[in-house]
């Protein structure tokens, strides 16, 4: 690793931190621009009670002071304040509770989509323009044209209601099968297409021809040269894939009633639980930003041909 690389990584880390700060700031001021405040519409509160509530949560202070307190609490204590609707619970605890289920869901979905995507993509590329390639391409094209919540609803209708072979409720381990499949199908289709095109590209390279001419066996060419090199573009998709899975899980958890962070987020939107909306947005955004950072750095490390600015 040379100094140029170190400089690049430092620059990227700085940009990532800056982005997270922008997210926190935007989220804070946007939420505080909402007219009425969080306690309006609460059943039967007198102005005195409202004032007391606002004083309790520090909402009576000037906005800038609230902002710096919020920022300081996040940086020093990783504290996002208390939830307004689930009394007595801290936002960060609710998020961590939901995160466990969501992590399992997201990681398995990511693993499945990477595994099957690479496999199908490689098969399609090696059998280019044959029947199996056509079938794979048609199916993946259909999958990338369907929003995740429609995919989820259709799977729910088919497997849980029509055929009744899988549970519709996602609170049990078996119930996680459908949400995982729903989340995995789109990235899987995308990875398949990505792998196929990059594998076709690699198979046309001179070093593959050289290897063939040297008499390297077909299997060694595929696994030793072609597959390894064609996976580089797939690495760039890791970040976007995580972003897709995070946002996809918001609706998928809603459809299958999975007790994860996505469902907590959606219900906090409908409940107007402001600290919860802010906390979840910031944490999920930070997760995506970090993942994009890791992807970018990994990409540069794996492929030395890529020039650094």
């Amino acid at each position: 690793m040379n100094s140029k690389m170190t400089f690049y990584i430092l620059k990227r880390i700085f940009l990532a931190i800056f982005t997270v700060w922008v997210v926190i700031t935007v989220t804070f001021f946007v939420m505080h621009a909402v007219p009425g405040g969080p306690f309006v519409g609460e059943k039967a509160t007198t102005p005195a009670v409202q004032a007391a509530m606002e004083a309790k949560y520090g909402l009576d202070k000037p906005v800038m002071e609230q902002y710096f307190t919020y920022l300081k609490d996040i940086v020093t204590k990783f504290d996002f304040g208390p939830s307004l609707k689930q009394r007595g619970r801290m936002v960060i605890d609710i998020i961590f509770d939901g995160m466990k289920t969501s992590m399992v869901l997201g990681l398995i979905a990511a693993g499945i989509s990477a595994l099957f995507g690479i496999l199908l993509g490689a098969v399609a590329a090696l059998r280019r323009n044959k029947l199996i390639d056509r079938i794979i391409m048609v199916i993946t094209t259909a999958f990338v044209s369907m929003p995740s919540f429609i995919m989820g609803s259709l799977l729910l209708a088919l497997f849980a209601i029509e055929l009744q072979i899988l549970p519709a409720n996602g609170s049990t381990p078996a119930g996680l099968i459908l949400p995982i499949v729903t989340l995995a199908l789109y990235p899987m289709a995308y990875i398949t297409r990505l792998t196929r095109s990059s594998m076709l590209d690699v198979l046309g390279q001179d070093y593959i021809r050289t290897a063939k001419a040297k008499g390297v066996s077909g299997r060694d060419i595929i696994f030793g040269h072609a597959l390894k090199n064609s996976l580089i573009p797939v690495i760039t998709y890791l970040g976007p894939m995580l972003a897709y899975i995070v946002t996809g899980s918001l609706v998928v958890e809603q459809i299958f009633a999975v007790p994860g962070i996505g469902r907590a987020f959606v219900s906090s939107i409908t409940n107007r639980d402001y600290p919860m909306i802010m906390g979840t947005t910031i944490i999920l955004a930070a997760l995506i930003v970090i993942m994009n950072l890791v992807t970018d750095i990994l990409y540069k490390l794996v492929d030395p041909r890529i020039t650094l600015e």
Partner: protein
Amino acid sequence: MAKKKFSFHVDLDSFIPASDKDKEYMVQMRPSTTFFRDGVKRLYRNKVAFVSFIVIILITLSSIVIPFFWPYSYETQLGVQPGKAVDASYNNLAPFEYGATEQKLIEQGESVFPHVFGTDAAGRDYFIRVIYGTRVSLAVGFFASVIVLLIGTLVGSISGYFGGKVDLIIMRIVDVIYSLPDMLMVILLSTVLKLTLTPVIEGTFLEAIGANIISLFIVFALLYWVSMSRLIRGQILSLREQEYVLSAQATGAKGKWIIKKHLIPNCISVVIISAALQIPSAIFTESYLSFLGLGVNAPMPSLGSLASDALNGLSSYPYRLVIPALVISLIVLSLNLFGDGLRDAFDPKLNA
């Protein structure tokens, strides 16, 4: 006349009138084709893209035309008559079933227009709701990409044209917006804009569009222009360095001429293609927000809100989910395939 070596004497043979055989070379065999016509020809030959184009045209036309002559409207609750009790027999009709009063009319020998897809839980004709939802989704997708196109082009050309500090500042802003997780920001901004905009637009014509759709457009205008502006900037930067621009400058062409004859024609295909590919992503986003309750205002339907409404009666009326799901997938699929075709036809470089 003998020609002397190294002399400047003119060879008069070169100046005799052309024979008919010589003239044949000058005849235009086929008219020279423009870049645009060439691309259209290539597009026409691409069967997949052509079929997708037909599908898009058919869906668009039917979503515009059918509501004009269809006897039902998307918001009329057929069971609700002023001054009478609500007739629940109109709710949740299966396809080609009729409500109680309609049934009577049929028995009297009158003909009643069928409810092709039945009615929904509030007794509204479902076919026209799907058609109208298609119109709303397409319009949202179209206008969102027009907004992205305008802002992206403006910022991108400013950045590419001026360069220097302006470029540096704009590109840093683009970097930050680019690394923001767009969906989360969309949800956040839509939530807030919905609450902020609703009282502001009350009573104006904007109310009919709904605060949610306006906030969707605002969000697109704020966040989604970045990749477009990057693209335009890159195009302008690379085109500016091309030899033909240099040669035009050398022969004394003015800036306006160069922009009109060289920069715009070479840039426009890339711009239009990425705008076309923006439409399905806008439709996706709208349907996603509709599902979270941040989409169009009831009773106006969009394909996303129809699909999410259908979830409530999924076990009894699965077709109400399947129909909008099919339409949305068909639209997105054909737009994607057509966009790919456009790219292949108009920008062979991209696909190399």
